[in-house]
C-alpha cells in the first residue's frame, strides 16, 4: 500500500520543511494540517492517509491530544505517528510515548534522522 503522509504543524515554515524533506526522500503523496483538529478532519475525509507526522505545541488541539484521539479511534488507531517537536526533556518524551506515538524527533531535525525514524516505524509495522 502506497504511503500517504499527513504533516501536522501550526508553523507554515515547519510544514514546508517537513514536506520538502519527505519529497526529497521520495514521498510525494502528502497532505498538511495546521493543528490537531484540522488533522482529525483530514484523517476523517481521506482514508488513504496512513502515516502522521505531528508537532506537539499547536493551538486548538495539540499533537499529544491528536495522538490520544487517533489511538482512541478504532478506525485510526493503527496509523503510525511520528512526533517532531522542540520538546526534548525526558518527561515530555515519556508522555508522548505513553500516548503511543511510534517514534520521536527533537527539532531541529536532520533528513537522516527523519528517514531513520520513518524506516524504523515502517519496519515495526
Amino acid at each position, binding site marked *: 500500500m502506497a504511503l500517504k503522509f499527513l504533516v501536522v*504543524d*501550526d508553523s507554515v515554515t515547519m510544514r514546508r520543511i517537513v514536506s520538502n524533506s519527505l519529497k526529497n526522500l521520495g514521498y510525494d503523496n502528502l497532505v498538511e494540517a495546521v493543528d490537531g483538529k484540522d488533522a482529525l478532519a483530514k484523517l476523517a475525509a481521506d482514508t488513504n492517509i496512513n502515516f502522521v507526522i505531528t508537532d506537539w505545541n499547536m493551538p486548538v488541539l495539540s499533537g499529544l491530544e491528536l495522538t490520544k484521539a487517533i489511538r482512541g479511534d478504532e478506525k485510526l488507531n493503527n496509523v503510525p505517528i511520528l512526533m517532531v*517537536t522542540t520538546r*526534548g526533556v525526558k518527561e515530555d518524551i515519556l508522555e508522548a510515548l505513553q500516548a503511543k506515538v511510534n517514534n520521536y524527533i*527533537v527539532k*531541529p531535525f536532520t533528513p537522516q*534522522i527523519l528517514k531513520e525514524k520513518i524506516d524504523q516505524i515502517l519496519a515495526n509495522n
Partner: protein
Amino acid sequence: MAKAPNNMSGLFEKLHDLKSLFKYGEKIVPIIQSLVDFMQDTVPLLENINHSIADSTAKIPAASNQINNVTSATELATTEILDLVDAISMNFDKVESKVNLAKEKNKEKTALLAELQKEVKKNSKAMELISKYMEIKESEEALDFVGELLPKFKDDTYHITLSLQVQDITAQQLAAVNHLIDSVQERLSSLIQDIDSTEIKELTVGKIQAPDGVAFDPNATYSKSKDAQNMADVIVNNVNSNHNNNNKASQDEIDKLFS
C-alpha cells in the same frame, strides 16, 4: 488647711512632669519635623515611581505587539526564502535534465562521428578533421563539471531550508517572552490598582493582543547538539523493547539509563 502643702506638692509634681514633657517635646519635635520633611520629599518620589510604573505598564502592549510583528515578519521572510529555494531547486532540476540530455546527445554525436569515420576511411583529410573534432572535449567536460556540481547545489539549497527551522524555534521563544511580558503587565497593573485604587486608562486601551492560536514551548532551543535526540532514541528503544517483552518501562529503569 492641712491639705494645702499636699496640694502644692502635687502641683509642683505636675509642673515637673510638664517640664519633663516640654523637654521631651524639645527633643522629639525636630525628629517629627525631619519625619514631615522626609514625607514631603518622599511622597512626590512615590508619585513619580507610581507614574513611572504606570507609564512602563502602558508601554508593555506596544513592546508585545512589536514582538508579534517580528514573529510575523520573520515568518513572512522565511516563507519568501522557502519560495525562492523551491524555485532554485526546480531550476536546478531543469538544468540537470538539460545537462543529462546534452550528455546523451553528445554520446550520440560521438557514435555518429565514429560511424562517419568508418565511412570516410579513404579520405585522409576527412579522417583527420573528424579526429580533431572528436578531440575537442571542452563541451563534454563542461557538462560533466556542471553535472557533478548540480547535486551539491541541490543539497546545499535543501540544507538552507533545514536551517530555517530556526524560525519556528525563535517564534516559540518570542511567544514565551510575550507570555512573560503579559504576566508582568498583569502584576504591575494589579500593583498600581492597589496603590492608586484606579485602573490606568492606557492599560485598557493598550491591552496586549496575543495573536490567535499561539502555542509554544518555553524551552525551545535551536541547537545542533544531538544530546536531546540521543536521549529520545534511548527512551524510545527502551520503551519499545520493554513493550515487546510485554513489560512496561518503569521511570526507575529509564532514570538508570541516564544516571
